[in-house]
């Protein structure tokens, strides 16, 4: 499955382009790739389109909520929907995913209630979900750390014998900027020498806050894998079908004991880094305009229209569902309860701890003193 196998000639290695795996062109034309035949029904493509629209709607709603002061901050996935939905839908229920802070689309595919994602950004919890329930770890904001967690997790399931045809595998998400971290490079080495069942899914959205890709790498990122001893490939990250196909294949290879793969999903961060960032300070509007022509949703829409697979009713129904989802997300955000004060002292250790208990009791007494004052008044 190695697209950049050891046989690649020096020309390919020194080039900046490399092969971009694509199954659906920006114009919405279905193309075939010899290594990635994708057997997919029209209904499945329509389901992917629905995912893309709904995930974008969650994002739009969250940005609006932040602007209105209801969220402290939001990291938008605008432009990266296909990379996330394509890879997210390639996972089986037993596979484990380790996200960054931007993987709202993957979270959606893992069945997480989008309102849960808002808890972190509203600042009421560090992440409101149980990682084991959805096989989706908490968001990691410290850049690159999760690649090591994923590698260790993969080594764990490997030891437990989860590898085989119906085995399990791990996927870890990270950005182009993260590839400069020691953690990420060290995880590549470990995954390689332990042949760990992990897929490294790098969303190269061309920017790490204000720093362009050239500040992180002189060669295309997918080519790095070769030096670590495992296959790397570059997929059109705005092509949901290609992202689905390459991730499926890489995950299956990992499950079957063939070790790690690096997938570079070539995409673009169409919005700001987060809502506190202003990208006009450091990048040209023309760049965004050129990427708008490669929009991950529009090409699927074009395909569905051209082939007659979907009619106006279908699109209207998806839009209506998106509207309802937006309303529901907004409502759950606005009605999110503030955390209880005494939760401060929960889960610091697995067992009772004298110091923490002392501080909790004093704090509880302090809180009670207000209650009794009110009663007395």
């Amino acid at each position: 499955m190695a697209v950049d196998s050891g046989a690649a000639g020096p020309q390919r290695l020194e080039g900046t382009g490399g092969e971009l795996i694509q199954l659906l062109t920006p114009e919405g034309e279905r193309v075939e790739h010899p290594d990635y035949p994708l057997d997919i029904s029209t209904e499945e493509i329509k389901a992917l389109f629905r995912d893309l629209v709904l995930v974008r709607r969650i994002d739009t709603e969250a940005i609006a909520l932040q602007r209105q002061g209801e969220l402290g901050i939001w990291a938008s996935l605008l432009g990266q929907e296909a990379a996330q939905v394509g890879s997210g839908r390639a996972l089986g229920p037993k596979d484990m995913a380790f996200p960054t802070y931007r993987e709202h689309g993957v979270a959606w595919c893992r069945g997480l209630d989008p309102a849960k994602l808002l808890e972190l950004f509203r600042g009421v919890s560090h992440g409101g979900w149980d990682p084991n329930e959805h096989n989706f770890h908490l968001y990691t904001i410290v850049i690159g750390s999760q690649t090591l967690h994923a590698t260790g997790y993969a080594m764990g399931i490997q030891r437990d014998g989860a590898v085989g045809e119906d085995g399990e595998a791990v996927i870890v998400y990270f950005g182009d900027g993260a590839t400069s971290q020691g953690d990420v490079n060290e995880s590549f080495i470990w995954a390689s020498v332990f042949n760990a069942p992990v897929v490294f899914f790098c969303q190269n959205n061309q920017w790490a806050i204000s720093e362009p890709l050239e500040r992180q790498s002189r060669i295309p990122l997918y080519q790095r894998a070769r030096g670590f001893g495992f296959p790397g490939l570059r997929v059109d990250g705005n092509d949901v079908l290609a992202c689905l196909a390459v991730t499926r294949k890489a995950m299956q290879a990992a499950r079957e004991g063939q070790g790690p793969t690096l997938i570079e999903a070539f995409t673009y961060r169409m919005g700001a880094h987060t809502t506190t960032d202003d990208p006009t300070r450091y990048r040209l509007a023309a760049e965004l305009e050129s990427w708008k022509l490669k929009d991950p949703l529009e090409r699927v829409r074009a395909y569905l229209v051209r082939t007659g697979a979907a009619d106006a009713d279908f699109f209207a129904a998806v839009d209506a569902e998106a509207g309802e989802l937006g309303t529901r997300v907004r409502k759950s955000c606005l009605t999110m309860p503030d955390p209880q004060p005494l939760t401060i002292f929960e889960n610091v250790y697995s067992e009772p701890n004298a110091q923490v208990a002392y501080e909790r009791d004093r704090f509880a007494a302090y809180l009670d003193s207000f209650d009794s004052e009110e009663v007395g008044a």
Partner: protein
Amino acid sequence: MAELTYRQAIAAALAQEMARDERVVLLGEDVASGGVFKTTTGLRERFGPDRVWNTPISEQAIAGAAMGAAMAGLRPVAEIMFSDFYATCWDQVANEIPKVRYMTGGQLSMPLVLRGANGSGGLGFGSQHGQSVENWAMCVPGIKIASPATPAEAFGLLAAAIRDNDPVIVFEHKALYSRKEQCPDDEHVIPLGRAAVVRPGRDCTLVALSITVGICLAAADELATHGIEAEVIDLRTLVPLDAAAVLASVARTSRLVVVEENPGQLGWGASIAAIAAQEAFYDLTAPVIRISGGNVPLPVAASLEAEVDVSVPRVVAGVRALLGQLRQSTG
């Protein structure tokens, strides 16, 4: 005199020192576009890419390369965007940088500055982006530590740090970045290791650093309405530590309260308290009190963080309890 915010004061100090000494270089993530906290605004435009380096995202590389650059004769100022990320470059910060002079028997010096955003201050940055970590650095002999409380201090201490021939970590408090103050126009340097008595008082000594200086001043105002005159000491630097200033104050007031933002367990306040116990025992008329952040990871909810952080009411209550005015009720 010009009115500067704390963040502008950082940029101004960097500009002052970069103009003064062409060996001063600035490196870090996003510094060329002004930095995510806008503390390096205008420097790339003024000093060019040879002096202001946008780096790949690797704190270990930023700190390690800064050390190498210092060995090559530069005076690097390296930004670690959030001081929580000293944990991602701790080998360089704890094992390498502070040992260079010692291990080379004084052959080499290590004139570098690490600086960045530290502390919580009720901003809701959570467990991994909101910590106050001066005490991490204080466990490692060989590093100097500055923690400015005001724009003028940020300016003067950073300038001094850059001129210093030892490694200095400057902890900028992110909740202070927008504070404004008149700053001197001419060359401005505050020597490291000199605390300031920022409010005189006879009844007790409040020892503070960075954000807790403002908290203690506000608490002192309120205490005055209860007839308590608190003296507030702004340490400014933890290493070198101006213990003499603390002891002199305790000799005047006979009571000591140390107020720190980090968790109490092995906070820097423990060092101050221990010094007082040894050196000022017979001056003290009451036990030394420490008021610190809670011994829990920092909650992300601002409402909970506010309870974990030190606050004016907690300082007021602590001091009043110490002086016997009420039973201490908060943690």
